[in-house]
């Protein structure tokens, strides 16, 4: 996983609530067995017209937002399906940071696992950042994870909260399986207790 430290980038505003993961990447594109290559179909229904041409009105089809690395939306971003293909599609498109007043739980989690930083901020602040974003390439936002602030084009700083453990993993680009396996003795201890207390717990064997 790529480390996330400081990102200075173009931000795109998508002022909609309840952007579900089907909208981020429709089910018919989930037939891949890889994590990469989904970016061309990110937001497929919004990005392309029925004849397959780009929809010129969609923000991510316009300059300079084609190169956006930050996405700002309204409430409940990533609701619906648990598909990690949604953050994979965003990442493959180039998005490293998503900002919204609220997120669906699984999507929020999935972002961290892929080096995407999700930031919760109040709706009024999202509106201000969307206004910055609409100014395009003259108005880069700088997301400073170590200091936990977003620096707006006018230099104003917007602080944000993040779980310290997740911050650590993002900053170091760490795989959390390795982290958990450092606690293997405790996992074994748990398993011994469970085998003793719940002897009825079935093992599955299928011939």
């Amino acid at each position: 996983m790529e480390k996330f430290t400081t990102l200075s980038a173009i931000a795109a505003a998508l002022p909609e609530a309840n952007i579900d993961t089907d909208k981020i990447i429709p089910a018919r594109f989930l037939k891949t067995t890889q994590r990469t290559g989904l970016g061309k179909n990110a937001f497929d229904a919004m990005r392309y017209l029925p004849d397959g041409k780009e929809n010129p009105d969609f923000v991510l089809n316009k300059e300079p937002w084609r190169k956006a690395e930050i996405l700002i939306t309204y409430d409940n971003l990533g609701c619906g399906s648990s598909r990690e293909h949604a953050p994979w599609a965003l990442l493959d498109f180039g998005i490293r940071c998503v900002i919204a007043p609220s997120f669906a739980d699984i999507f929020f989690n999935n972002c961290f696992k892929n080096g995407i930083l999700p930031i919760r901020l109040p709706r009024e602040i999202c509106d201000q950042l969307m206004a910055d974003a609409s100014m395009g390439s003259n108005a880069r936002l700088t997301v400073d994870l170590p200091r936990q602030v977003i620096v707006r084009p006018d230099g104003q700083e917007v602080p944000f909260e993040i779980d310290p453990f997740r911050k650590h993993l993002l900053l170091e680009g760490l795989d959390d399986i390795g982290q958990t396996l450092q606690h293997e003795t405790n996992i074994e201890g748990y398993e011994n207790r469970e085998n003793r207390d719940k002897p009825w717990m079935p093992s599955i064997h299928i011939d």
Partner: protein
Amino acid sequence: MGPRTLFDKIWDDHVVETLPDGTSILYIDRHLVHEVTSPQAFEGLRLAGRKLRHPEKTVAVVDHNVPTSDRTQPIEEADSRNQIETLERNVKEFGVPYFPLLSANQGIVHVVGPEQGISLPGMTIVCGDSHTSTHGALGSLAFGIGTSEVEHVMATQTILQRPAKNMRVTVDGTLGAGVSAKDIMLAIIGHIGTAGGTGHVIEFAGSAIRGLDMAGRMTLCNMAIEAGARAGMVAPDETTFEYVRGRPFAPKGEEFDKAVAYWKTLASDEGAHFDKEVTLRAEDISPSLTWGTSPETVLPITATVPNPADEADEAKRTQMQRMLDYMGLEAGQKIAGTPVDVVFIGSCTNSRIEDLRAAAQVAAGRKVAEGVRAMIVPGSGNVKRQAEEEGLDQIFLDAGFEWREAGCSMCLGMNPDRLTPGQRCASTSNRNFEGRQGPGGRTHLLSPAMAAAAAVTGCLTDVRELA
């Protein structure tokens, strides 16, 4: 320790260790795997030289991509075939128990788990699929995870989690004619919204919930995710124990009695704290359906489509208008009487034998309206076989329904079962998002009985009028 909720008890019982920042390593009793969200996880294990810590706590099945037509024929869509073959190679390489496509035990993972006794009360259950919440109907803590977490569970049999908040939704009273678990859940989502449960686990309680059979409870918990909740749960009771008894992988004899003794300790204690409480009266719930492209856009079948002009918030008003345009509906029109093109009875929400019986009761002696395509897709090979033993297949076939093989099918259209642009579908599935059942498709979520009523009348219909 003070009074605890059902969620608190299962959570406490599965914490391996709590890290200094409050994240817990939570032990996972059962991991369910399917072909769409697992290939990258297996690949990750392979690259890191890791194995599954406990393949015998894991079960794999193919469901999302599988055709629901003749299974003896090769799978036509190359990318679907590849995903299925990839799973088959992976389960062999990593020693994962697997129900193959041609097994009678194959089906939708959330139907197969409870049906086989693979999912049991008191367990922690995960799967790379948001509708894993279904298994909470047994009184387990079951939730959907992403593919990175799938890999984490495979390697460690644990997951990193922070405890959810507790929410209780109580439905007391007696359900009216034509009102099912689906209508209860639609009413709840309509009431609290698609983010109403975010950060919470919902426990469903009250006399109307207690009165539901297991299939009904699974329908409720299945759609807890549509209310934004991490999981849905119902406390295990006699209905649960009778359901579990005798299932192929459930404990037997003395072991079963020991398990039941433990499961009986799990119900929420008197006075346990809930961070959020919502109460509905069963008598206030009508046969319902959705009109828009979010599961919270719920209406009683007797109602009219809402008018965006009545919405104060501008962003919401715009969104409502877009939904009406997408759905091809007019503000203020009666929802009943809207013609449908397709009827889909199936999905992890409503494809169990009880759901098929409810649909068959409406279909019996009637004919699918001209020009309507009506499909029945049982949740598993076993559901299909049982329905055939009960003669339900004949009722459906006589009425002009298609009687298909088990799988996720038109719920998300990863297999050939898809809507074409503009088609309107009465669907027993769980999501009405734009393009969910096929690009441009229009979905109305409703119960199996209401779906059957739409099939035989050719339009969205109050099932009570067919009684």
